[in-house]
């Protein structure tokens, strides 16, 4: 039965009113609403607002080419995933790119196929050569730098920074060798982290170390919110250069090993990640295969409060910041007597 015309029109009118009511945006898009909006974008609960990366290569000399390559590979990864140079502290103990023994000058490769030059145009090394010392490292971590230290050499993290600390070089049972002249012990490292926690210089930290007997290096850490992973257990090491075990493969043209196994397999996983990836650290750790790496990687998560399957890889390796949409603007009028003198403006 067809409705009488006026009822049909009434029905249309009312339904279009209802539609309009749905479509009208809310008048006050203010704080609490922004907060709800924000929760959707960022709900994995780490509470960090910025990311830092401290990448340290402690070795010197040409035959430690692979340590420089390790560190530069991690540098490239964190930069690709979004951490800006101002938040990366790169410490390279030696300059192999311009070493006279380098057959391909001004390049550093991490692969025998030499497909990717890690030492490209956009590399910013903060501590170089002889500046990489235990004292500088600890001063940088704890913030007790000399007053004239430039900004790029300072770790300006705060209580909502997630920090990735990656170290590589030659190590042993609870120590790591710096520049063939000194060493840092696991106690010193644990102490430095404890001081960082006391002053709330980090929110969460991922400590990654690729050396011989690396897992001993994080055994003394006691501060909360630190997740540690190392490349080899106590007793796993090799000093033989002719038959490298931890070294992954040499490049016969360059003449030395170009990457370490642990870092190589980490990079294999990380190269498949981009900025928006939601893969978790559990996925990364599950991809470790002790047979392929030829040593037993270790993971220490007892101090870390979040379960690993809820921690995204980009929480440490990338820089995914929360955003809040700005729905309204604040009405301004021009100031009277706006003088032409600038207010503390620097050109």
């Amino acid at each position, binding site marked *: 039965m067809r409705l009488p015309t006026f009822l049909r029109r009434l029905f249309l009118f009312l339904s279009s009113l209802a539609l309009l009511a749905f479509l009208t945006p809310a008048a006050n898009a*203010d704080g609490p609403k922004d907060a709800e909006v924000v929760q959707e974008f960022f709900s994995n609960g780490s509470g960090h607002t910025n990311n830092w990366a401290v990448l340290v290569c402690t070795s010197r000399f040409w035959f430690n080419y692979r340590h420089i390559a390790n560190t530069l590979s991690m540098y490239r990864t964190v930069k690709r995933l979004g951490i800006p140079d101002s938040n990366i502290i790169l410490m390279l103990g030696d300059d192999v790119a311009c070493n006279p023994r380098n057959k391909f000058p001004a390049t550093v490769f991490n692969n025998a196929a030499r497909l990717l030059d890690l030492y490209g145009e956009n590399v910013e090394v903060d501590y170089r050569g002889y500046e990489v010392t235990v004292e500088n490292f600890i001063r940088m971590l704890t913030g007790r730098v000399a007053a004239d230290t430039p*900004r790029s050499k300072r770790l300006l993290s705060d209580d909502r920074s997630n920090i990735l600390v990656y170290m590589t070089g030659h190590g042993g049972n609870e120590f790591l060798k710096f520049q063939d002249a000194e060493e840092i012990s696991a106690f010193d490292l644990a*102490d430095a982290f404890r001081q960082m926690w006391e002053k709330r210089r980090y929110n969460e930290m991922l400590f990654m170390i690729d050396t011989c007997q690396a897992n001993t290096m994080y055994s003394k850490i006691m501060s909360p919110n630190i997740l540690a992973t190392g490349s080899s257990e106590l007793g796993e090491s090799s000093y033989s250069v002719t038959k490298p075990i931890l070294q992954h493969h040499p490049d016969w043209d360059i003449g030395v090993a170009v990457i370490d196994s642990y870092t190589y397999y980490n990079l294999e996983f990380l190269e498949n990640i981009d900025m928006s990836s939601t893969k978790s650290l559990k996925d990364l750790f599950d991809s470790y295969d002790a047979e392929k790496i030829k040593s037993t990687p270790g993971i220490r998560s007892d101090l870390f409060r979040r379960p690993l399957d809820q921690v995204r890889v980009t929480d440490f390796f990338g820089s995914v910041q929360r955003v809040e949409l700005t729905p309204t603007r604040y009405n*301004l009028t021009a*100031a009277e007597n706006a003088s032409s003198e600038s207010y503390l403006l620097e050109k």
Partner: protein
Amino acid sequence: MPDSTKRLVIASVWAVVLLGLPLWWKTTAVYRAQLPFSQIDSWAERKACQLSFPSTFVIHLASIADGEPQAHNRPLDFAVIQETITSNVNNRLSSTNARECVEFPLHVNIQNWPITSDMSNLLRHTEPSNSKQVISKYDIFIAPQLPAPTTSKLAHVQLGDDRSIVVTLREWTTSDIEEASSAVIAAIVKGERERVRSIACDSELTERSNLDGARTMKFSPTYQMTFSLMNGNPDSLQVDWDIEAAVNTYLKPFISEVSLVSNFTVDSQIQHYADLAVTPQFMEREKLPSYYYLTPQTLPHFINSAEWNLASTISSYPTINFILYIPAADKTPLRIHDDKGESVLCERQPLRSNAFLIPRWGGIAIKNPPKTASGKLEFSKEDLKPFMEIFVAQLRGLIGIHDLKKTMSSLESSYEISLAPTPQTAVTVIEMDAVVKQRIAENVVNSIATLKSLAQLVMDIPNMVVLDHIRTEVQLSLDSLNQACQALQQEDYLKALQHSIHAIERSEKAFFDPTMVSMLYFPDEHKYAIYMPLFVPVSVPLIMAVIKQLKEYKKEKREQKIKAE
């Protein structure tokens, strides 16, 4: 050699050893100035001084002089009204879990306010009792709505720009006066109390999930504001802007208002070839212009950190970045979709302001160049006005200002609220008062925590050198804390803010002093390994000599005994 000489020689060598031992111990001890540990502990346990954030409200009750209906001239019992208002406010604001770490004393005074029956522009008649504009001291002027009620709600509340509030009541009864006063006082005070309480009292875990705390920049006496104009592709369009004039005209008043708490240095830059790291999607629409858009999920990756150089080496102050992005020609117009949920037509709407904020970092606004633009696009001061408005809105959020309109929104159901607009300074005094209180609480709490960490560190590492100037800084910091707390109790917020800033600066200076790096870890085995090769070979003949002498002495004694018998 006669025995006595031998023994004298051995005894003298041992005397040197025994005298030298304490001398060596004293001279190789690490210099440690004595820090006032007990004071630091008492501050850490909040026993040293009770933090209090008092507020004073002076209520002026109108009494109309010229011959008016009796209703409006009934004498009112000020004392009773004061009592009722105070207890009402306290009832409304008492939290369920009363934590004693912070106090919020409330002082309410009632005064007579003689006025004429000419109600036009009441605000002009008001004379604030504090002509020097003391922080946290407010005047509430209450008058009846004459000659006729102007609103259907209980009262009309006008918030002025100088800590004065005018409330005109529909009905002039004692209960209405009390109700209106308590409601207004409670609304003003509630938000700031909650925030100060959460800063001062909350445990760390609850603080983690606090979005306000995550957005607000950590306190710093100076911030560096950087304005960046990013041009997506200068091949099609070159851009320039008169940022200096825009900042001077639109931002300078705001900056000078906020300089009470923090200073700002401003610099700007233009960057070309600023590619995006994310690819916008294309939205095709019939009958309406189509556009490119970015979803809110892709916005966290908007900043192309690898290519855009936003770092600044000018200073070590925390940086607040404001970016104005001009998309490349093949990506215009570029809009941001909001997240209002799926509407009936299954379409998200582009955000009108085209801007978003990154907590503790800064803000971004996207400007699509007009279709007719070609060659060079210059932004004059007036062109930049809408963006300055966006940036000011974002900056307010980043430095912790809470919108007054939102604060008073809880009253809107029963009262009609009107706020004096502040289009020049972009911040009202009531908002600034709240920021001052929050920063004082933040600084006091952080400096106490820093001093406690310092004390902990010094006690845990017995080998660490503690020089005199560290002790001086710690002492000065504790003094500043004391003075800040006392100033708070006397309701002198300006002084309290200064002292709290000094306290945090000094405590950080002491904590981050370059001499506070502990010596590297020396296990006991190392100490033995150093001293043993020096002292063991020397001590062997000494000890053997003493033992030999003792044996001879015993032998002699026995012989003498035998001889005596």
